[in-house]
Every structure is written in structure tokens, then in C-alpha cells.
């Protein structure tokens, strides 16, 4: 069982900026929508949903269920600068596998925030009775791959020309796995 009482918690970055990590709430729709609007197009190419549409974010808020998807936001004041999610299934053959996703605002990259959020997800995963965490990353996202590998994720598989961006181009998909202590 994940202990959400650890939130909100302050996290200081290497440049001295202090952010707050906390789970997304139903009233975070506009903050998160603005955050996604600032994500550069080359990164949005790899999104699974069209997050430039507010209703997509609204739908997440309306269906919030931390048992299935736990979104952790990094906030600087009122502004979302990072979004990390832990996705789980309650039943089925992947119920012990948590899927993690991380997105960082462009002006907060190279400050260690991505690594901090992966570290946070790893902690949550360890507390969730999961056996594995899994991250799917496009091979070109080298910084993200490094951040996951730095936290102990290892390359489980590479699928060649497996996924397409919104322009139709094909890319290699890396599956990174982290085995839990349990």
C-alpha cells in the first residue's frame, strides 16, 4: 500500500530551486494542461494522447484513481514543472508490473528533476508490492534513458521501428525494467 502521507514533500534541485512533489488532484487540470502546452512539439510527438486538448487532461482528473494511476506533480509555486505517473493493474498477469512515465518542463531539464522523479517513482513502486517497474522510452530520448539507467533500470528489450510519432515516422522503443527488492 502506498503511503501518500509523505506528500506534499519538498525537493531541492541542484540549482537550489525548491519544488513540491504531491499527487495530482482534481483541481490541477488547468495547471497540468498549461504544463503540457509548454512541452515542445518534438516531445509531444511521442505522447500517447493529444494532451494539447484540455478535455484529455480533464478526463484524467475526472477518473482519478490512485490505485490504478498515481500521478505525482512537481510544482514550483503554482506551476507544474514535472509530471511522473505510476500505472498499475489490480488484476491479471501484469498486476505486479508498474509502468512509469515522466515528463519534465523544458526549462527544468538538466537540473536533476527527471532523476528525482524517477527516484520518487521507484520509492512508490517499492511500497506497492510490485515486482517490476517498466518504462517505455523512445531510443532517441537519450537523457530519459540515462535517468532511468542511473536509477537501476536495465534495458529489457529494444523493438526496432516499433512505434510511430504523430508524423508517421518510425522509432525504436526501449523497454527498461527495474526489479524490486521483494
Amino acid at each position, binding site marked *: 500500500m502506498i503511503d501518500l502521507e509523505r506528500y506534499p514533500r519538498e525537493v531541492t534541485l541542484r540549482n537550489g530551486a525548491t519544488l513540491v512533489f504531491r499527487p495530482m488532484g482534481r483541481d490541477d487540470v488547468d495547471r497540468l494542461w498549461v504544463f503540457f502546452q509548454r512541452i515542445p512539439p518534438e516531445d509531444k510527438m511521442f505522447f500517447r494522447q493529444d494532451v494539447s486538448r484540455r478535455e484529455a487532461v480533464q478526463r484524467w482528473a475526472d477518473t482519478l484513481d490512485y490505485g490504478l494511476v498515481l500521478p505525482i506533480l512537481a510544482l514550483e509555486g503554482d506551476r507544474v514543472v514535472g509530471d511522473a505517473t505510476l500505472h498499475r493493474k489490480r488484476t491479471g498477469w501484469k498486476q505486479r508490473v508498474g509502468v512509469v512515465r515522466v515528463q519534465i518542463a523544458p526549462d527544468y531539464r538538466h537540473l536533476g528533476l527527471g532523476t528525482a522523479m524517477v527516484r520518487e517513482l521507484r520509492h512508490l513502486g517499492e*511500497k506497492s508490492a510490485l515486482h517490476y517497474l517498466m518504462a517505455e522510452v523512445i531510443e532517441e530520448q537519450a537523457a530519459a534513458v540515462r535517468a532511468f539507467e542511473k536509477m*537501476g533500470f536495465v534495458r529489457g528489450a529494444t523493438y526496432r521501428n516499433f512505434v510511430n510519432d504523430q508524423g508517421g515516422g518510425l522509432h525504436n522503443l526501449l523497454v527498461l525494467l527495474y526489479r524490486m527488492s521483494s
Partner: protein
Amino acid sequence: MYAPPEVSCAVAGAGMRPLPIAATNSVTNPVAGAPSRWDNLGMAGTDYLCPHCGAEPRGGPRRGGSRPGGKPGCPYDGLAYAALRAGHDAIYFGQWRRIDSLPTEIRRGYHRIGRHLDAIGAELACHDLPGAARDLDEALEALHAADPREDAPDALRLMDNALSYAHRAIDDLLHERGLPPHHPMDFSEWYDVVEVPFRDEW
């Protein structure tokens, strides 16, 4: 072969205290190597050793190094987990990692890593951080595989891996307190270090 001791959650605080010389190699003070800059400083005639980096507080009026009350001007002073950070860096910047290191220096590095992992284990015993505990296990596993007495060709790589896992465990502890990760290069000026070509962070 290095054998870690049983540890419990009873680590003393990092306050300044007199330590016998022999204690510099103990779990209480995990560091068996001090910043090299201190090695060149004049004796201050004190019985104290820095609880963070294990150096004897020294210094003269022109060279610095000691502050009133016998407290050394340690670069780790006031930082969270100062002793663990200093312990890591003393090994990270140690002689064993030089390309022309001697077998004795490698063996010394190996045992220093062992003591460093003991200290991390003692600290982790006070926390519920399974991720960090796993990092420590990985570090111990790498260290055990690296027994330098066996002249194993992979010994240096495995020792390096052990130290990397140790670093990650320290960063886990820091993250839990909301602090940024430890960057050894921030302290490089205290050691004899060649500059790394680049560093990158996400």
C-alpha cells in the same frame, strides 16, 4: 574476502568528538582517507579528527583548515550525511582508481569500499528505504565479486560498480530528505583530481 558486520540502528551523530587514531577505520568513522589538501597542512596539535572525512584538523594562520574550538574547516561540514559523502569521495578520488595504481592501493580501496558500505548499511538500518537497501545489496554483491586477492581481471570494474551503487544509496537518503544528489566533483578541489570531460543530467 570482505565480510560485512551486522549493523543496527545505533549510529552516533556526526558531532565533533575525540576519536582514537584506530577509529578512523571503523564503522563509526568510515573514511580511511582524507582530502589530500589537508595532508599538506601544518599540525594543529589537537586530539580531534573530523567526523566527516576522518582528517586531523590542522592548519596555520595562513593556510586555514581549522576553526575555533578545534572544529576543522571540512568541506562537508554542515551537509546532510556528511560522513557518508566524505567517505564516498575519499574512495572515489582514491589512489586505487589511478591508471598506474599499485596492487596495495587497490586492496586498500577494496577494504575502504567495504567499510563505506558498512556505514551506509548502519544508516539505512534507521530508514525504511527498500530501494536504497537494494542498492546496498547490489554494491555488496559487486564488492564480493571483486576480491582483489584473486587477481580478478574485473576487480576494478566491480569495485567501481560497488561504489556507484553506494553513491546511489546515498542519493536515496538525500532524496528522502528532499535534498539534491551528492556530486563528488563539487568537492574535487580538495582532492588530487583530473577534470572529467563532461557531466550530464536529466
